[in-house]
């Protein structure tokens, strides 16, 4: 009996290795093809979108869901590729430290408070990513949050010593190969076989998200004059961008260029409606009466200043605003001019408010009128046909509380953003064509998401703040699901250009906003 039993373990061994095999397994060489592209060493260049920035911070899970990381995983299905490395943060809290002092905020999470769910800064753990802990690269993901196009060529942009004085970027300082290295140098030094380039967003976005407090530098090619919140001159953008492209293709690398989205369609600008001044009939009548008083006071003042009655009434007419029951547009402060001496006006339909505006202040009269008891007293005098003193009249005028420039993107600013974005996108598309590179129209994707929405297997991705699924809690950067949609767009562009068959990802497998009540 024993002589038979001894063979049994051998028999069993044979069965262990008996795994089911598919007829056409996807992990077998040749199932997918890289076509004419070589994804062996993929390097991603760009700013916060490339880094995987979301919820107003960079953190590990965001980086894991960055579009370059998602794409690199898909690239590895079609050919043998090297590891895709990223300068990972130390935690999922997101804030940066410099020498132990926190210099950027923690990420947002969706917290539930007394008034329902809203984004709050995460406080469940202390941030631990200190930028003085230098990471030794190189890193395939060279995305640097905050970088404008020309910063990719700027020596010293990764110099730790320059962070405190604002000449260097804390994210790049973590992993720049040397204090004087440029982002582009560090990318080229990796001898990429394939690259993606996403640049230009911050060249216009920083202007937009701060309500256009910066300067539209179109026509000025001297970058030394530029402030952080300025719009980059398209000629500067063109020379910068073509410089980057030519350096990247110089090693024979293939690649994909990405257009710049129209930032005015993101939730950062579309969440707070410009007509959120909701009034009942009584309040509307009161406010209308208030502005009749303003117009009256202005007329008197103007006539005392020497204007004819006709002139005074004509100018004053613009201040006799009418308010109706229901939603009304807010007032904004504008430059006081001869034609608008009081320096405020009601918003027009297209104008946009930023997400970061103080909503509590809006509820208390910011964007309309701050009615103090003293002002009410003066209005009472006027109502009874009395004549307020000059000081009292001034109280009424000063009660008008227009929204500040930094909280609003007015028509002129929207126009400046649109013109620059369009100019950049023509340049990017032309350079893609001229260099035989793929072109991913990120702008079109954002337009779809903010328009009809982007369909996926469990619904539609929209740019509705918090609930739309595409954009994270900072109102600007995508969620993992949004980044997955972006990855699919780029993969499509690459496949089309290089005759590759890189599989897309199932964007329904990627999450949206992160929930936590461990907040400040």
């Amino acid at each position: 009996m024993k002589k038979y039993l001894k063979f049994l373990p051998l028999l069993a061994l044979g069965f262990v290795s008996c795994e089911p095999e598919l007829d056409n397994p996807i992990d077998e060489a040749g199932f997918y093809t890289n076509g004419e592209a070589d994804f062996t060493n993929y390097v991603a260049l760009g700013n916060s979108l490339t880094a995987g920035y979301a919820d107003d911070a960079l953190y590990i899970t965001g980086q894991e869901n960055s579009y370059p990381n998602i794409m690199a995983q898909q690239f590895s299905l079609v050919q043998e590729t090297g590891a895709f490395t990223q300068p990972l943060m130390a935690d999922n809290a997101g804030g940066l430290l410099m020498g132990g002092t926190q210099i950027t905020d923690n990420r947002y999470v969706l917290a539930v408070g007394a008034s329902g769910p809203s984004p709050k800064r995460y406080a469940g753990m202390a941030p631990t990513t200190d930028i003085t802990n230098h990471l030794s690269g190189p890193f395939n993901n060279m995305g640097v949050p905050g970088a404008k196009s020309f910063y990719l060529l700027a020596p010293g942009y990764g110099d730790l010593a320059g962070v405190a004085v604002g000449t260097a970027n804390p994210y790049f300082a973590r992993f720049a190969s040397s204090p004087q290295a440029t982002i582009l140098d560090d990318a080229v030094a990796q001898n990429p076989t394939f690259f993606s380039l996403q640049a230009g967003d911050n060249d216009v976005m920083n202007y937009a998200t701060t309500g256009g407090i910066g300067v539209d530098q179109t026509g000025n090619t001297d970058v030394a004059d530029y402030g952080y919140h300025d719009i980059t001159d398209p000629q500067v953008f063109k020379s910068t961008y073509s410089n980057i492209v030519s350096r990247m293709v110089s090693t024979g690398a293939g690649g994909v260029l990405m257009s710049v989205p129209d930032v005015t369609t993101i939730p950062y600008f579309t969440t707070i409606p410009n007509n959120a001044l909701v009034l009942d009939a009584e309040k509307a009548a009161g406010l209308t009466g208030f502005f009749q008083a303003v117009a009256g006071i202005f007329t008197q003042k103007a006539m005392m200043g020497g204007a004819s009655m006709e002139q005074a009434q004509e100018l004053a007419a613009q201040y006799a605003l009418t308010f109706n029951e229901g939603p009304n547009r807010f007032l904004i402060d504008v430059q006081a001019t001869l034609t608008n001496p009081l320096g405020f006006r009601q918003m027009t339909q297209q104008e946009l408010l930023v997400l970061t505006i103080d909503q509590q202040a809006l509820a208390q009269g910011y964007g309309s009128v701050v009615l103090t008891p003293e002002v009410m007293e003066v209005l009472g005098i006027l109502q009874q046909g009395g004549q307020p003193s000059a000081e009292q009249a001034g109280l009424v005028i000063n009660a008008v509380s227009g929204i500040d420039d930094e909280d609003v993107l007015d028509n002129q600013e929207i126009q400046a953003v649109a013109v620059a974005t369009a100019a950049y996108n023509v340049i990017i598309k032309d350079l893609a064509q001229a260099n035989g590179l793929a072109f991913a129209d990120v702008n079109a994707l954002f337009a779809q998401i903010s328009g009809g929405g982007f369909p996926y297997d469990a619904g539609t991705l929209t740019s509705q703040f918090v609930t739309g699924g595409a954009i994270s809690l900072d109102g600007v950067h995508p969620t993992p699901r949004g980044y997955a949609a972006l990855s699919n767009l780029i993969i499509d562009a690459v496949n089309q250009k290089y005759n590759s068959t890189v599989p897309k990802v199932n964007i329904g497998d990627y999450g949206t906003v992160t929930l936590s009540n461990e907040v400040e």
Partner: protein
Amino acid sequence: MLSTAVTYAGGYRVALQGQRALAMGHTGVAVVNSAELGFFNPAGLVLLENKINISAGVSAVFSDVVWQNEEFGQLARSESPVGTPVYLYASYKVKDWLALGLSIYTPYGSSVDWEKDWPGSHLVNNIELAAIYVQPVASIKIAKYLSVGGGPIYVSGTVNFNRNLNRTLSDIDGNRSNVTIDASGVSAWGWSAGAMITPTENFRIGLNYRSEIMIDAKDGDATFSNVPNSPLTPFENTSFKASLPLPAELTVGLSYEFLDKWLFAFDYNRTYWNVYDSLDIDFASPNVPDSQNPRNYEDSSIYRFGVQYDANEKFTLRAGYYFDESPVQAGYFAPETPRNDANGYTGGLSFNVNSNFAIDASLLYIRFKEVQASYDPYFENGQQVPFGGTYKSSAIVPGLGITYKL
């Protein structure tokens, strides 16, 4: 635990209830051969020649599944542990017309371990299901040509199941939120009864019916892990109620001895899977939404064929084949029991050590066709989100047993 069975047949039925029968395609409702009749048809026990008959054995189940989705480049393999279902049958002939016995066997079970957080993890990460049947049996010869048998069945069941709460929910560090439900020692009762007709010396007809047994877990533990700290996800550890049917099975068959040394057997099984309509988990906590998981199984059939050849005094050789129809319907292919129609090929032998004692060996190889299948009734935000792809399963089951008669 006595056994960990691995799914390899339709649904979670694990047909490995005797090495001699298994080697013949798991036929046996009309085969009078050994105490394995204690499972296949207790009516036949009284027809065994010897006074005391004992059969015991164990199988080693090597069963795996591979899944892929070509569109998204996803591939996953189950890493199922080796299952070792066992059986023990004993019978004693009290009188010429009466035999009594005890049967212990594990006809239902499942064990599938997918890679944690695989693309189908919102349906299952891993499952382990085991049920042990303990059955006293009586076998009575009523007439020259007819005997009957049967007895009550006591079942003790265990279930452990883990899945992610949905496709994306995770805690702040990206760890996927999941739930484990666990219930053990869940007992239930059922019965089986059979009849055997022997019209001529070398021809028998058998019939056996085993009742449906409902495993009602009433106080299992549901444990939630990696749930975000948020009032929007109020999942808390709680108890649960759930019912899992072990369906009834009807078997009819025949055996025919010919050319002195040969035996042919045929069994037809009908498994009443229709009862498995939905796996509904009722969580005790009002904060935790109950979970409804439609299964929509249908009754299914298995056709079994076997032959036996008495080579010499020492060796008896066996071979068999069966076709196993899956109870799983299109659109309900859940990766917890990812089974399509199967062809089973069996072989084996008995080595007669002496006139009382034999060693039985069997080998089962199950061939599954590659199948494109999906599980459709999964909903996200009210929208149906099917989970599917290409599945292929394989199973190899070597088994070893002993037969003792006195």
